């Protein structure tokens, strides 16, 4: 809502935004762990990098020669992740689905320069998807004169029953492209019971506890693909915080804060780790627009 007010002020009043030069200190270096693992039979990736000065135009420097593994604490099974490209440690599961053990506790262990960084995550259940459908966007909405038909998609999903709160990250792709805007960090607690509506209104206006899906506009022959990733409550808070920090401007900007982490830095090192480790169960569905 506050963003909306700022936006309207920007449109209606005299406000403006423009880039400026700011001189910033060069901060200490951090070890950044990006470990979002899921239970699908696709290649799983963990990215390790060093943070860089804020205005650096380079990608963050990759962390080489680390040993990375994930252990299932229930069964004791260990899965090593091998560095394939610069800083990217991967594991391609076979048919046995090593990360499919619902409610099991998994540990991530990263050894770098003989220091052992640890994190833990429980694989939680995801929501059941009934279907995805599409409907024509009426021409009068915002662009009254349009020749091509435009579509919005609607996800029909059902939150698992029970008293347990479920937290989800809903990711959407148009064809193969993942929507990667800040507003595409669609988070939900318990979804809604039944239909998850498409949103013409402001995305994520009321998270928590209910969520609107910020679906984009689709055109004929497009494919809409939706994934619901289960996340932990802490991961939900981490993503919420990240979303606020990535774009935190305007009249109602919040005091900037550092995003939380679940990676434990050993006392033996000054190289502090940040980032997140999450184990997700994923449900998917897609639809082809004719």
């Amino acid at each position, binding site marked *: 809502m506050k963003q909306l*007010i700022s936006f309207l002020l920007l449109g*209606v009043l005299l406000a403006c935004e*423009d880039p400026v030069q700011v001189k910033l200190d060069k901060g200490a270096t951090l070890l950044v762990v990006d470990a979002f693992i899921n239970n699908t039979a696709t290649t799983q990736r963990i990215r390790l990098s060093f943070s860089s000065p804020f205005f650096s135009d*380079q990608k963050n420097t990759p962390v080489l020669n680390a040993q990375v593994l994930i252990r299932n604490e229930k069964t004791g099974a260990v899965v090593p992740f091998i560095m394939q490209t610069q800083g990217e440690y991967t594991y391609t599961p076979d048919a046995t689905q090593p990360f499919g053990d619902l409610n099991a506790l998994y540990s991530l262990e990263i050894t770098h320069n003989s220091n052992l960084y640890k994190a833990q995550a429980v694989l939680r259940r995801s929501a059941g998807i009934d279907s995805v459908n599409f409907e024509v966007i009426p021409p009068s909405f915002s662009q009254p004169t349009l020749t091509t038909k435009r579509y919005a998609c609607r996800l029909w999903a059902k939150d698992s029953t029970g008293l347990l709160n479920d937290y989800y990250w809903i990711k959407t792709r148009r064809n193969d492209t993942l929507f990667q805007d800040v507003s595409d960090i669609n988070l939900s607690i318990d979804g809604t019971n*039944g239909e998850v509506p498409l949103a013409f209104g402001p995305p994520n206006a009321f998270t928590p506890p209910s969520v609107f899906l910020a679906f984009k506009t689709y055109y004929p022959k497009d494919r809409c693909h939706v994934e619901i990733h289960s996340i932990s409550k802490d991961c939900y808070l981490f993503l919420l915080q990240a979303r606020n920090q990535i774009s935190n401007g305007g009249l109602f900007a*919040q005091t900037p804060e550092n995003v939380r982490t679940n990676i434990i830095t050993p006392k033996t090192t000054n190289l502090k780790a940040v980032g997140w480790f999450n184990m997700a169960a994923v449900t998917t569905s897609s639809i082809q627009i004719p």
Partner: protein
Amino acid sequence: MIRILTLTLLLFNFFLEAQVLCRGKITDFETGEPLIGALISIRERSLGVTTDAEGRYLLKLEAGNYTLQVQYLGYASINVPMQIKKNTLQNFALVPVLNELDEVLIQDQNPARQLKSTEMSVAKLDIKQINKIPALLGEVDIVRALQLLPGISTMGEGASGLNVRGGNSDQNLILLDDAPVYNSSHLFGFFSIFNPDAVKDVKLYKGGIPAAYGGRASSLIDVRMKESSAKRPTVNGGIGTVFSRISIEMPLIKDKAGILIALRRSYLDALVKPFVPEQNPLKNTTFYFYDLTAKAHWMINPKNTITLSSYIGRDVFGASIFSFDWGNKTLSLRWNHVFNSKWVWRTTAFYSDYNYLLQFGRNSDDQSFKWNSLITNYSLKSEVSYLKNDSSILRMGVQSMFYDFLPYDAIGNFGSNTVSYLADSKYGFEHAAFISKEHAFSGHFKTECGLRVTLFQYIGKGTAYTFRDTLPNTTRPLDSETRYAVGEIIKQYIIPEPRLSLNYIRNDRQSLKFSYNRMSQFVQLINNTASSSPLDIYTLASRNLKPLISDQVALGYFHNFRDQTLETSLEVYYKYFQNQVDYIDNADLFINPTIENQLILGLGRAYGIEYYIKKNRGDWQGWVSYTLSRTERLMRGISNDNWFLSRYDRTHMLNVNSSYDFNKRLSASATFVFYSGVPATFPNAKIEIQNYIIPYNTDNLRNNYRITPYHRLDLGLTYHFKKNEYRRYKQHIVISAYNAYNRRNAFSIFFQAKESNPQQTEAIRFSVVGSIVPAITYNFSF
């Protein structure tokens, strides 16, 4: 020893014989409204008093022949020889002399009186003075005018409220004819809710706050509404760029009762509409405010006067898919009773409410969301003043206030599913008793000692939450909940608040003042964003949220030069806050019943030097104010547990305001301000997670940088059209340019990934007023 001396002096005064009383009321000759703070002096003796909030004065003299001099800014002074043999009632009516420049005294109050009173850290602005300041969009605004005084700052355009000596904007007790106002701004802070046509004057206390007032930690902003004319109907109005206003004053009973009604309505949305492209979804945005201010008074007899004041205002903001509106309502009824020449009794009952309603979709729609929040306040205050003699005044009274806060009541309708979120209302009582005594020991030494004792009760029906302790700056887990029945006391606090002011008057031109005051605050605004929005809510002190307490000492040196035409003051202050609120990282303040575990209570301190020089007579008038200050906070778990700068900290603040009268009809004015940039937390590193670039501050320091300094020049030109001697119709036109040299002052600087290349980050300056704002306003009265 001093006590014995005081007592002796008191007794001595008490037994003085052959004293008579001269009392009366000073009014405006044209409109009949009372003049507050007018000076009545006896030329034969160095004796003078000022009129109170009803325009009344009281002099105690030995019987004899005297010449009474009556003075008030903007009015011709009068000298009246009088034979005062017995108790006398003598009213005076002063003639306004607005266009007769040689005789005008444009000064907020008599500079000599200012010097001699115990008041310090007080800024009083008269509406005529405010009218001279070039204004944003040509509209005179009281709150914006106050920002030009020393020690007062704001976060910038678009930020509602004021920060007084390092205090948050919710630490100002804003009273509109005694009723507190919770949101004093329209259009997200661009204008205040006070209609200048209906305001008589405004007084801001930064320190030395009288014992009769309490409930906020930093300041008292006392806005007095104008009393209606008692002689003939008058219409005032203006047509401006942003809004138009009209006010009507008319007598109800000749010389005894009258009413004033003032209305404003903005039309910014209609003006902007032609410039919004057809396809833009904002095309049909409505965005306006209106307000109605009214005051009626009735002098039943010379001993009893009743006044009724009310304000109703609302901002309405909406488009096809949503609507959002908010506003205040106040109503205050005051009864003044004069028992005799010494005892005056004043009783005020008031009601104040603030509410907002936010709605997406309509009830009939497939999906909709409706949310409202409400603050209601009822109070009764009764106080007596006892004027023992010219050198001693005793004031005492009691006040009771009832709070009823509904934090949120929301209904979401998502297809077949309806979700409702209804918070428990929060109830509280704030009872206070106060006493203060002003006493002049000799011509050189004056004191005002006071005590206010406040009892705050947070009462049921409600739930008290107990949280477990955990790491600082994280959500404390809920341990237990206790339900309380209607009227049961959940938590209570008793806070004694001593107040003290001392004045050493060296001579007519110099004085040295000292003040100490303790203030407590039981309602706090919950908001962790740069500017407070109308959606922010107030919450009551509870078991977990302890009342905010501030202690302030100030020392000031006052010196008037050149026959009182140049006033200067130098004040130093130190202020210490306990239970200052801050927020944990990732605080969830939205529809959260356990909001209290999202707060951190810590310490605050503010200190500074304020310098003020003002020229108050002549063609050329104006003032310069400069403040050197620091405001800091200490919170567990924030900024590595070190003191950090508050976001209201401004090292340097310079205000220059001046006006020049070319002749009786044409005048020009200019305002220049320079403020150090506000502190801000900037990142120094970036981290990459899931292809998102997230800013990070590896030192973990809060407010480690400052944004660029703020400076601005405003210009104004006022032309009074020639007045037809046979007609009452008067008109003048105001042309103004706000931000005359077109500077883009940063409201904030934030950081983000570039749209063109997400790997590259950039700093973005957000300016609320990014260009020069010219305006023209036409004003009339008849």
